[in-house]
């Protein structure tokens, strides 16, 4: 899962990036509205954390531009202004959730998880595929109730496929959503991780669709 953080306060930006990275997300950051808008417009993100008060271009305008350009990724608005009229304005501009500063980082993580989950059409924090069960909140995977140890890269890959289970996911899409923009993208690494995952999970869990990509089948 790849997340964009647009926040002009460098410390807060760093903290959010650290927290999200720790939570298993690939994170890109932007420090002003224009940069944020450009990234959101050109890169595929699974969620965006967007501050309202930004230099160059304010958050609401950025959001409206994205929505006008039919960008549908879930957006969590961050703002110091927490009046209901502000919330209504934010939601009407196309935001999916709203978080008032100062906030607890766990709260932000929970909201992002929920947004990503909702965007993929899952109602709960747990996604299952056959015997494989993924607890999104805890970042834990079990097979038939037995805990499976995964590295963070493996977890990211599985999480993305589980979120989009039933859908064929191309290697390019995986690369785009699993690594931030500074990562040296080599599609071989995806194959390496898929291979490792297959060893830890039931054999037929991740299927290869020749020429298209990978897929986790719906139950």
């Amino acid at each position, binding site marked *: 899962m790849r997340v964009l953080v647009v926040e002009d306060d460098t410390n807060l930006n760093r*903290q959010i990036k650290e927290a999200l990275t720790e939570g298993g997300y690939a994170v890109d950051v932007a420090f002003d509205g224009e940069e944020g808008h450009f990234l959101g417009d050109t890169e595929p993100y699974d969620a965006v954390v967007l501050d309202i008060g930004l230099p160059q271009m304010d958050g609401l305008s950025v959001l409206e531009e994205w929505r006008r350009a039919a960008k549908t990724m879930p957006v969590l608005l961050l703002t110091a202004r927490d*009046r*209901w009229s502000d919330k*209504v304005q934010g939601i009407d501009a196309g935001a999916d959730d709203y978080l008032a500063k*100062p906030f607890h980082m766990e709260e932000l993580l929970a909201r992002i998880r929920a947004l990503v989950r909702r965007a993929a059409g899952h109602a709960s924090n747990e996604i299952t595929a056959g015997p494989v069960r993924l607890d999104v909140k805890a970042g834990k995977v079990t097979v038939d109730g037995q805990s499976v140890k995964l590295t963070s890269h493996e977890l990211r890959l599985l999480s993305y496929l589980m979120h989009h289970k039933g859908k064929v996911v191309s290697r390019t899409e995986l690369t785009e959503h699993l690594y931030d923009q500074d990562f040296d993208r080599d599609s071989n690494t995806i194959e390496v991780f898929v291979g490792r995952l297959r060893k830890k999970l039931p054999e037929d869990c991740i299927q290869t669709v020749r020429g298209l990509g990978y897929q986790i089948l719906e139950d």
Partner: protein
Amino acid sequence: MKIDPLLDRLRRRALAPFLTDSIAARLFWLSAGWLVLALVATAFLLTELYSHALDTSLSQTLDFYGETLISHLLDTGDPTSDQVFIADPRFQRSASGWYWDITDGTGQVVNLSSSLTGSLLPAITTPFDSDGHRTAALTDEFGVRIRMVERQVTVRGKPFHIAVTGSLDEIFRLAGDFRGQTFTVLGAVGVMLAIMSFIVARIALRPIGKLSVAIEKVREGEASTVEGNFPPELAPLAEEVNELLRSNTQIIERARNQVGNLAHGLKTPLAVLRNEAAGSRTRLGEVVLSETTKMTQLVAGYLDKARISARTAVVGRKADPTIVMLRLSRVMQKLNPNREVVFARPDASLPWFRGEEGDLEEMAGNLLDNACKWSAGKVTVSMMAERTEATTQLLIRIEDDGPGLTTQEADKVLQRGVRLDEKTPGSGLGLDIVKELVDVYGGTLQLKRSNLGGLLAELRLPSARLGRN
């Protein structure tokens, strides 16, 4: 007996402005004072003029009688003759003040009126004028004040003095009567004028009362400016008051914005400090965490306070609750896609909320937020008008199918700053601001058990009449 105190009170109330150092009192006493002075002076002047006119007329009568005596004297040539007389019967009554006598060159009385028998006329000390004529006001032997006219004539070579007198007492009596009547009439006029000036003072000062009522309305928050038509003397004052209000509002607005900017500006650094401290397990981290938590609460608390104290002039403001609740339901539905937010749209006859739209949003929004937070899947919003004899209130019902609250919990929650579950995110001020705003608007908030199984929040707020500002 019972009426007396009432009358007394009424009198005191009506007259109160005229017994103090008020403008009405000054106007009244000043005009009344001048009025009394002018009326008294007029009365005296009139009486004086009248008695002077009477005196002049008496002198003319006496002159005429003198001429009569002289002509008789010339006819008969004998001053002692019976043919020398005045027909007026007043000259026959003694002590009437009406006398005449004729003295010769030696001062010997040669003839006199029968009224003068047995007594003597007082003498005039002033000399005769060039016409042989002199006059004076004197007192006779009986104490009657008289006007005496004396002529100097020569008949057949002999000099005579002919003196005729008339009673001045009669004139004084007449003048006295006249004075009495004058005072009565002018007194009545004076009383009428005093009443007039009382009324005039009240009418003239009425705009001042109107102005003070208008200013009071502003203070009470019923009006935002001093409104009404005032006379040219007061209009600038009203305008100045409005200017003052405007500049005051601007100053307050600016100060409030600064406070708001400061408070909001603090939120990002607070967030940074808190997040940083939360990650560190040191003593410094703990201190920073606890202090930033306090600061966060302070910032939120003062922002709410500023928000509430900004509610000085809500007069004439009204909001369509249907639109507000539609909007909030839509937002809450989007924020909570796994809940069903059902808004029972009321009919168009629902009264509007009397107050600021943002405040209604704040109250209903926080309640709706709570409902969504606790609900298991369904939140319903309904609105209706609650009519009593005196007022019509707007009733907003927000209910959920969550765990709900017991009566004790509900009572506790309605106290200030109390949160039941410290784990569910939020500053704990959500319900506080609702309670404060409900108080400001004189509404009520009740927490009950919903038919859905969870909490039912009933918010009653003042309503505005439809189609009226």
